[in-house]
């Protein structure tokens, strides 16, 4: 009983415990912020990734699959699979207008040929088109999508983006168009609130030239294909890597550009330029196409049906692929290759290594910070040690009036717990305030001190994760309380083992 009273009095009448509580608060805040941001980043990646690139992919880069429509037909018959769509992925070069002069700047881009409606069923393509009418609003006119006079144009642009076509305003003839990542041109200025505003040029009205390299089966460029295309809309996933690189084209168009559409093949032993004796004299022998090469897609993206996770869907897709490959012996790859070409989205080459690196990094940073926070144990320990020394006489008095050793030890452990609770709660609150406002804070740091810690080109997302998960908060705060109690333990043991007479005679 006296412990509660004394804890309260000691806590409010001394500066030292206040310092200890502040140390605990800073440590818990530090760990919680790091965990929330790094862990939140990973969670964001895992949560958003699949809605950007689908749950499962079947991919055979460059060469691609023939009979993909047949494969898709079989895939969607499985209950695990909700939808599937073919895509073609290739490297490309986009010449964009720059803010400086009339010169065009080339950008290396990832060109993705999609069937927009199907693609939207597998990913959330339409949702991520940036330019769209958001309803007129007077006080948010900084956002172009909310300007009264833009509403009609935005509606049209959204429609054009989701069909990858643009209608000529004069003739009314529709022509194929691109959708490009919102960070591709760098003509959009991102405000601290995360809104994009056209800096000078409004991209969707521009026309850019896209070049791709059709490759032979040996991976050698056959020629350069280029098209000048209008930009229908811009795409924003929030994942910097996609937003700064991706260019969407109509599937058929890219297939054509990359020479992946249906073709006829000449026999391998045909010798060009061979002359033979025709009925009317010598003639050049004409190749006779004996074989039709079917059209190909490089990727098939799959969305899992409700109730099935990506792994189950992957297994289903592997089965379907195995059967499919058996029916089309020898081309492109046999059934045993299923392990390599069917994968859940997290295992997409490049992304997989990145996710693994982030996981490791998060773990490492967390361990490091917890280790640093361990200093709080010693800090609390040191402060309590001196408190016990200072309170030696009190300990003697308590023992004289009948307090037991355990009771005296509990007094100090309890006191440590109280400091831990006060400190952890304060630290949790601090972390919450900082994490919730981390994007404005980061922006402010950048503007006033030139300190940009979060580089979107490294961290994928243009925004820093800003959510404190209750579970994490609970663990960190619990840790803070535990560490404080731990720090109080040795001084408490010392207090308990004090000889009461010596304590009373202590000057």
């Amino acid at each position, binding site marked *: 009983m006296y412990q509660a009273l004394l804890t309260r009095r000691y806590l409010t009448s001394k500066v030292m415990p206040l310092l200890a509580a502040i140390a605990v608060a800073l440590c818990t805040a530090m760990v919680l912020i790091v965990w929330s941001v790094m862990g939140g980043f990973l969670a964001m990646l895992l949560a958003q990734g699949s809605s950007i690139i689908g749950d499962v992919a079947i991919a055979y880069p460059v060469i691609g699959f023939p009979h993909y429509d047949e494969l898709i037909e079989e895939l969607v018959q499985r209950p695990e699979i909700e939808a599937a769509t073919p895509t073609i992925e290739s490297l490309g070069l986009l010449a964009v207008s720059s803010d400086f002069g009339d010169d065009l700047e080339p950008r290396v881009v990832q060109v993705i040929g999609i069937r927009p409606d199907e693609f939207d069923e597998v990913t959330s393509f339409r949702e991520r088109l940036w330019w769209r009418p958001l309803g007129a609003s007077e006080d948010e006119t900084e956002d172009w999508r909310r300007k009264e006079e833009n509403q009609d144009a935005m509606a049209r642009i959204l429609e054009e983006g989701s069909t990858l076509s643009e209608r000529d305003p004069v003739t009314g003839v529709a022509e194929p168009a691109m959708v490009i990542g919102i960070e591709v041109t760098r003509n959009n200025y991102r405000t601290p609130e995360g809104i994009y505003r056209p800096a000078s040029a409004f991209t969707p009205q521009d026309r850019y030239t896209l070049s791709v390299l059709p490759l032979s089966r040996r991976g050698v460029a056959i020629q350069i294909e280029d098209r000048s295309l209008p930009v229908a809309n811009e795409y924003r996933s929030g994942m910097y890597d996609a937003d700064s690189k991706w260019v969407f084209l109509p599937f058929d168009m890219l297939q054509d550009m990359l020479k992946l559409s249906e073709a006829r093949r000449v026999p391998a032993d045909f010798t060009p330029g061979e002359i033979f004796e025709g009925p009317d004299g010598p003639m050049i022998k004409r190749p006779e196409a004996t074989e039709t090469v079917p059209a190909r897609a490089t990727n098939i993206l799959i969305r899992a049906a409700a109730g099935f996770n990506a792994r189950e869907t992957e297994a289903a897709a592997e089965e379907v692929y195995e059967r499919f490959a058996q029916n089309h012996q020898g081309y492109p790859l046999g059934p045993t290759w299923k392990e390599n070409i069917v994968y859940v989205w997290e295992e997409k080459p490049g992304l997989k290594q990145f996710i693994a690196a982030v996981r490791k990094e998060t773990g490492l940073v967390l361990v490091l910070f917890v280790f640093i926070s361990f200093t709080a144990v010693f800090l609390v320990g040191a402060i309590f040690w001196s408190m016990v020394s200072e309170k030696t006489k009190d300990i003697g008095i308590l023992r*004289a009036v009948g307090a037991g050793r355990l009771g005296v030890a509990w007094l100090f452990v309890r006191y440590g717990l109280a400091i831990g609770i006060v400190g952890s709660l304060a630290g949790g609150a601090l972390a919450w305030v900082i994490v919730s406002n981390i994007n404005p804070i980061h922006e402010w740091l950048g503007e006033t001190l030139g300190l940009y810690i979060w580089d979107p080109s490294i961290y994928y997302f243009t925004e820093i994760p800003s959510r404190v998960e209750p579970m994490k908060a609970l663990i960190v705060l619990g840790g803070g309380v535990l560490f404080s109690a731990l720090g109080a333990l040795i001084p408490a043991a010392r207090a308990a083992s004090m000889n009461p007479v010596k304590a009373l005679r202590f000057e």
Partner: protein
Amino acid sequence: MGALLEANNLYKTYRMGKVRVPVLRGASITLEAGEVVAVLGKSGSGKSTMMHILGGLDTPDKASSDNAASTVMFEGNELGRMSGAELDRYRARRVGFVFQFYHLLPELTVLENALLPAMAARGRVKYTHERTELRARATELLSSFGLGERLKHRPAELSGGERQRVAIARALINRPDLLLADEPTGNLDEVTGAGILDALLAHRSEAGCTMFIVTHDPKVAQRADRVVHLRDGVVVPEGQPEAV
């Protein structure tokens, strides 16, 4: 009236490096229930030491080649055989200490200081249950010592005499059978000292509590039932000539 406490053959020697300071050398004393005994002795003669031993706060030396076994019996139970927890309970329930230098907790108010042994002797539940009663008793005790208006004050805001009275209230809160007071009037002027002694003796006649009062003050000794001297490590009754 049987003996409440019987201390036999107490030895206590402090060692400081090679130097041995023998303080108690076979001191014995018997306290009858309800009697007030005054203990006189020179400074450094071991009065406080003996009081600590009787209160179970300190232990006498173990038997060795120099000395026979020391024992302290309280109501027939030997303190030396009690466990730590039993000793804690003995101090909490049966004994009240008044120290030479008040020894109040500076962070607690007058009332809280007086209640401290009541808290230490009870668990949280029991204390909460009896809280109103105990507070009433503490208030009454402090009022009877003229501190009724000072309940919320801190010890630092009190005079020496007032602090000593708080210490006495604290010693009496659990209605101990044995009060051990170490120079309760030591630092006080004659009038205040007499007042404190009045308060103590009034309490004795009311509760029948046995008192062991260490003092230098002949006036205090006069009012005790019995006076003993602590001299050369042993207890000698008053009037007995000094040992050679």
